[in-house]
C-alpha cells in the first residue's frame, strides 16, 4: 500500500525536545519533598513553541466548514448565526473568573442573570418552572424522563413503566427513556406525517408513564392532532414530554406549556443562538408545568429576599422539595447561559417572533423551490425544516449520501442525511432565519444542478466531493483498524 499523504501533521509530530509554548514563574515558596513513590516517569505530550501551536490549530481550523463560513442547513440542528457580542460578554472577567462555590452574596450578578434567564424561558415556553442545570439536549431529556418517573412514583403509581416514542423521534428520546428504566414503545406515523392516533390510543393504558413528542416533528411538521394527542395521553394518566430541539419554529407563535405539554427541554445551542462548538458545549434547560416543579433537578435560582426601597432583591440557590437530585456538578453551563440571555435581550418578544416567522418562511421557500426536482414525501406547509428524498427511481445508483457529498463542492454543508428513519434516503433541510434569500437561491441552484447531474452524469456525484481539502473518508477502515490515538498501530 502506498504511504499515506499527510496534509497537516499531528501536534505530536511537531515535537522538538526542549521546546515550550509557555513558561510559568519559578516557585516563590520553600519547596517540599515530592512523594517519590507516587511520581510518574514520562509523559508523552508534544514539545512545541507557541507559534507551532497557533499555526497548527489555525491550519486545522481551515479544514472545517462552519456557520461563519457559509450556509449550514443541517436539519434539526438549527445552525443559525452566533452573534459575536455574546462571545465577548461570556468572557467578561466578572463572568469568566467566578468560582461556582463562592458565597451567594459575592455572585449576585451571576445569580440574577440565571434567575432572569429562567423567567424568560418560562415566559417564552408557557411553563411554570425552570432548571438551567442540564448540559445539553439529551441531558435535559434524561432529566425530564426522570421527573416523569419520580412524579408517578410519588403518587404511588408504580405500574407505569412505558414511554411512547414516535418513529420519527431523534435517537436520544428512546435512549433517554431506556436510561430511566422505562420500556420504550414506538408509535408509527400516519400518511400525513402525524402520530398515528389509533395506535396511540391503543397504547394508552394504565402502564403508560408518558409520551415523548417532538413538535414540530423531525419531518418539520406541526402535529395536526396535537391537542387530541395530548388529551389522549393525559386521559390515560400519562405525561407528555416535549423535545425542544425544534422550538425555533414556535418562538412567539405558540407556547408548548399552554398547548398542554407537561415538561420540556430547550436547546440554548440551537434556538437561542449559542454556538455548537464542534459538538458542544450545549445547554439543555428543562421547563415544566406546576405539577412537576417540585421534581426539578437542584439547584435552581430563587429570590431569597424581595427588593426593598433601598436594596435590590437577594438571589440564591434553592432545592425543589422532591428533586430528582443533581445531574451534574455545580449549576450548569453558565458560560452558555450568558450568551443565550444576551440573545433574548436583544431579540425581545418581537424579535423572537420574527425569528420563527423567518425560519419557517425560509424553509417553505426552499421546499417550494425544490419540490419539482426532489420528491418530498410529506409535502405540505412545513415549519422550520422539511425532509426531501435524495433518490430518484430513474437514477437508481444515486443516493442521499452522494448528494450530500456533492453539495460540499458548492461550498455548502449538506443537510442531515438518513434521518428521520421513516423517509427513504432522507435529506433533512433546516435553513434557519439567519440566511438571506440570496444564499437560499444559491443553494437551490446547487441542488437543482445536482438533481440534473444525477440523471446525466451520476459519476460526478459518486466521486464527490472534488473541491474540498479531503475526499471521501474510509469509515470502514477506521472501524477495522481502530487507531484511536497517536501511536496506535492498526489491528
Amino acid at each position, binding site marked *: 500500500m502506498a504511504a499515506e499523504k499527510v496534509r497537516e501533521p499531528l*501536534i505530536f509530530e511537531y515535537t522538538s525536545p526542549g521546546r515550550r509554548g509557555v513558561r510559568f514563574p519559578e516557585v516563590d515558596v520553600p519547596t517540599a519533598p515530592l512523594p517519590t513513590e507516587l511520581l510518574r516517569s514520562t509523559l508523552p505530550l508534544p514539545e512545541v513553541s507557541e507559534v507551532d501551536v497557533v499555526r497548527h490549530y489555525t491550519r486545522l481550523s481551515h479544514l472545517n466548514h462552519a456557520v461563519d463560513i457559509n450556509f449550514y442547513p443541517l436539519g434539526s440542528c438549527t445552525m443559525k448565526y452566533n452573534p459575536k457580542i455574546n462571545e465577548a460578554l461570556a468572557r467578561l472577567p466578572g463572568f469568566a473568573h467566578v468560582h461556582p462555590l463562592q458565597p451567594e452574596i459575592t455572585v449576585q450578578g451571576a445569580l440574577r442573570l440565571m434567575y432572569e434567564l429562567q423567567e424568560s424561558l418560562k415566559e417564552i415556553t408557557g411553563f411554570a418552572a425552570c432548571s438551567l442545570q442540564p448540559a445539553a439536549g439529551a441531558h435535559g431529556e434524561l432529566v425530564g424522563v426522570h421527573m416523569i418517573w419520580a412524579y408517578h412514583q410519588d403518587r404511588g403509581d408504580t405500574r407505569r413503566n412505558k414511554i411512547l416514542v414516535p418513529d420519527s423521534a431523534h435517537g436520544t428520546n428512546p435512549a433517554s427513556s431506556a436510561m430511566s428504566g422505562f420500556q420504550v414503545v414506538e408509535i408509527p406515523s400516519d400518511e400525513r406525517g402525524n402520530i398515528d392516533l389509533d395506535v396511540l390510543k391503543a397504547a394508552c393504558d394504565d402502564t403508560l408513564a408518558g409520551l415523548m413528542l417532538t413538535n414540530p416533528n423531525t419531518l418539520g411538521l406541526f402535529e395536526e392532532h396535537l391537542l387530541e394527542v395530548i388529551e389522549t395521553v393525559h386521559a390515560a394518566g400519562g405525561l407528555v414530554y416535549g423535545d425542544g430541539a425544534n422550538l425555533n419554529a414556535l418562538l412567539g407563535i405558540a407556547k408548548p406549556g*399552554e398547548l398542554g405539554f407537561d415538561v420540556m427541554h430547550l436547546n440554548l445551542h440551537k434556538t437561542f443562538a449559542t454556538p455548537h462548538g464542534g459538538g458542544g458545549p450545549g445547554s439543555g434547560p428543562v421547563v415544566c408545568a406546576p405539577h412537576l416543579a417540585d421534581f426539578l433537578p437542584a439547584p435552581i435560582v430563587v429570590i431569597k429576599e424581595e427588593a426593598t426601597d433601598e436594596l435590590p432583591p437577594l438571589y440564591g440557590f434553592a432545592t425543589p422539595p422532591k428533586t430528582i437530585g443533581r445531574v451534574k456538578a455545580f449549576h450548569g453551563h453558565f458560560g452558555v447561559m450568558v450568551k443565550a440571555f444576551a440573545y433574548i435581550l436583544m431579540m425581545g418578544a418581537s424579535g423572537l417572533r420574527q425569528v420563527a416567522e423567518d425560519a419557517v418562511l425560509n424553509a417553505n421557500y426552499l421546499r417550494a423551490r425544490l419540490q419539482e426536482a426532489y420528491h418530498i414525501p410529506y409535502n405540505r406547509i412545513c415549519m422550520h425544516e422539511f425532509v426531501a428524498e435524495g433518490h430518484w427511481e430513474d437514477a437508481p445508483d444515486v443516493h442521499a449520501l452522494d448528494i450530500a457529498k456533492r453539495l460540499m463542492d458548492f461550498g455548502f454543508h449538506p443537510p442531515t442525511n438518513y434521518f428521520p428513519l421513516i423517509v427513504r434516503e432522507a435529506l433533512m433541510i433546516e435553513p434557519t432565519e439567519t440566511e438571506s434569500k440570496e444564499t437560499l437561491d444559491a443553494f437551490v441552484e446547487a441542488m437543482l444542478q445536482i438533481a440534473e447531474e444525477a440523471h446525466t452524469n451520476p459519476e460526478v456525484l459518486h466521486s464527490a466531493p472534488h473541491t474540498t481539502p*479531503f475526499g471521501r473518508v474510509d469509515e470502514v477502515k477506521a472501524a477495522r483498524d481502530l487507531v484511536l490515538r497517536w501511536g496506535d498501530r492498526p489491528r
Partner: protein
Amino acid sequence: MYSPLTQAQRQAMLEQIGVARIADLFQDVPEAYRYPALRLPPPMTEMEVAEELRALAEDNETVRDLVSFLGAGAYNHYVPAAVDAILSRGEFYTAYTPYQPEISQGTLQALFEYQSMVCALTGMEVANASHYDGATAVAEAAVMAYHIFRGKRPKVVLSPALHPHYRETTRTYTQGSPIVYVGDDLPPDAAPEALLDWVDDTTALVMVQYPDFFGRIYDFTALAEAVHARGALLGVAVNPLALGLLKPPGEMGADIVTGEGQPLGIPLSFGGPYLGMFATRKKYVRKMAGRLVGQTVDSRGQRAFVLTLSAREQHIRRERATSNICSNQGLMTLAATVYLSLLGQHGLRHVAELNYHKAHYAARQLAALPGYRLRFPETPFFNEFALHCPAPADEIAAHLLEHDILAGYPLGQAYGEAFRDVLLVAVTEMNTRAEIDLLVEALGEVH
C-alpha cells in the same frame, strides 16, 4: 437583526410558496393558542445589552478581585492567551459535530489529538471525545461497568472521598435502574482498602478519586489488585493537572479513568462549561459511551480522521444504546488540547509542582498556627488539603470574606457535623507567596 430578509424579499418568497401572508404558514397551530402574548422587555441594541451585562458581571466578585483558596472540584488556574485565541476562531466554535468528515477534519484531528493526550495523561489505551463534566463522566463509568457484566453485578462502590456532586449525579443518573450504590457512608478517614469490604461477586465497579475530594493522593495499585481478584473493575476520577506530576492510574491497574478537565485551560465561569474526561482499556471500547474519533485515509490517500464505532451510540442503537449522550464538550476538548500542547510534559510538570509546593507551604504555615492542624496529617496531598480550624469553618470563611479572602470550602456543607470545623483549602500557581502569607495572617487572628 440577525435575519437578513427584506420586506420585499419576504413578499416574493410568500408568492413562491403560494400563500398570502406569513400567518398562513402557521395554520396547523391551534388557533386559540396562536400568537400568544410574550411578556419580555423590549428589544435592546447590542450596545445596550453590552452595558446591561457588563453591569451584571460587575455585580460579581471574582477570584481575581478576591484572594481565593477555593477549589473543591473547580480551580483558579492561568490560561495562556493562545488557548482562547484558538477557541475564538469561528471555524471551530461555529461548527457542528463533525458528522461530515470531508469538511470537518479540523475538529476531527483536534479530537484525535485530545484523545491521544488523555491516554498519555491517564496511562490508558482509549479515550472518548468527552462527557459533560467530571460528575457525569463518573455516572457513565458506573453505567458502563454495569453493562460490561451484563447486569449480573449490580453493585457499585463509591468512595466517600469522591466529590459529593459526582456521587449525587451518579445516583440521579441511574434512578430506575437496578444499580445500587454502597460504600460512601464510610467515614472519609478510612483508607481506600476499607472499600474492599463491599467488593464481592455482585460488585461491578469501585470508584475512587485521585487526588481525592480532600486533596489526598494514594497509590491504588494494591486496591486495583484486590478489586480485580474479586472480578470487579477499578475506576479512578482524576484531576488531570495532578497527572503532570503523579503516577497515572493506568500504571496502578485502573480499568476506567474519568476526570474533570477544567484545570486544563478552561475558565471557572461559575461552574461551566467544563470537560468530562473518560478513558478505559481498549478491550472495553465497544462498551464505552460517547463519540470516538479514529484514524483512516480518504479517497486521495491522505491520512484522515472520522467518527467511528458509532453503532454504540443513540442515533443508531436508540433504546438499546447504553447512553443517550449526543452533544458533548467539543470546544472544551480543544481548550485542553491547546493548553496541553503549549505546556508540554515539562510545562505541565512545572505547573503541577508549583501547585504542590505552594499548597505544602500554605499547609505548613497554617498547621503551625495555634488551634489549627491538618485533618489528615499522615497522607500525601497535591494542591488541596483539609484544615481543622478552632471554630466552625463556615464562620471562619464568612469572617475572612470580610477581608476579601475566599478561605476555602467548609466541609461541613457536604460531610456534616464531623467536619463542621474543617476547611478545604486549595492553592494553585495563581496564589503568590504574599497571598498565602495573608491567608495565614488572617486565619491566625481567628481563635
